[in-house]
């Protein structure tokens, strides 16, 4: 933890201070760019805070809610696949800033996996910012020609009879994987089901978590 007193001055917006003189050349420049843009009224402090608040309100929990509802309500699942934005709105998730997004449903015979080989396209309005590994050169390079190798690294091994479908998101469409409902979860509540839906399972590199043996059933 930094106790650099000077850090407080510029960190008032979200309060986790860091030692400033250790920052890299580019890291320092963003503070300068921000100050200049504010001085010139190109953007306002409110603009910046709005974006910080917006991103902080996004997390994989949003996606998990969608998935758990889709697992328990076949009609909702059909709506989620047919019109994802409307289904999000139903669940109180604002996905309007997404150009379009598509839900990819996993089955026993098909596993989907999402990558952006050219940059880092990701359904941010739903899941928040992408994890570091998703943006890494290794993932971007390998996901398209070695998806099974990548899945194996994450702990998923689809059999040879399973079809692995990789989606390289290169344009205006964002993709969200609807993982398979784990076995033995018939009696779990929607809320408990959502706990099994990890961020990585919605990118498609793993399945949803297995049901915890002995976990409280709601029957």
């Amino acid at each position, binding site marked *: 933890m930094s106790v650099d007193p000077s850090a407080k001055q510029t960190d008032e917006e979200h309060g986790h201070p860091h030692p400033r003189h250790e920052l890299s050349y580019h890291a320092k420049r963003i503070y300068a760019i921000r100050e200049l843009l504010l001085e010139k009224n190109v953007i306002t402090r409110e603009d910046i805070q709005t974006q910080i608040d917006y991103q902080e309100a996004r997390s994989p929990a949003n996606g998990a809610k969608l998935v758990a509802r889709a697992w328990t309500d076949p009609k909702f699942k059909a709506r989620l696949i047919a019109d994802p934005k409307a289904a999000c709105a139903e669940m109180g998730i604002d996905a309007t800033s997404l*150009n*379009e997004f*598509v839900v990819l449903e996993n089955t026993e015979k098909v596993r989907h996996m999402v990558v952006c*080989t*050219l940059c880092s396209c990701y359904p941010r309005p739903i899941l928040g910012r992408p994890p570091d590994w998703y943006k890494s050169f290794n993932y971007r390079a390998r996901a*398209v*020609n070695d*998806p*099974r190798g990548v899945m194996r690294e994450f702990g998923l091994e689809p059999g*040879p009879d399973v*079809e*692995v*479908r*990789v*989606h*390289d*998101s*290169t*344009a*205006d*469409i964002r993709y969200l994987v609807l993982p398979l409902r784990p076995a033995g979860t018939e009696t779990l509540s929607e809320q408990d089901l959502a706990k099994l839906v990890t961020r990585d399972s919605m990118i498609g590199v793993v399945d949803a978590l297995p049901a915890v043996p002995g976990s409280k059933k709601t029957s």
Partner: protein
Amino acid sequence: MSESSGRFKPGDRVRVRAEDRPGHIRTPFYIRGKTGWVERAHGEFRNPESLAFGGDGLPKRPLYLVGFHQREVWEKYAATKDKLFIDIYEHWLDPA
């Protein structure tokens, strides 16, 4: 999602143009020259090749979800039914 007014429909065989030129291109290098099929028409979107240089991206371009057999994209890919899907703008596709 709006219906595409484009020249291709789901099921059509298409070949990705093997063009190579400067600019901002959203068709990955590895898929150029490969043959697949239109899986889905996404509708029309502003052209990123123009947007990237301050243009208005108009006219909008039909965008397709194009499917490929992994074994046809990568020589060494193991014998499976695995597939690869990429969003590709119409001006990067020819009938195949």
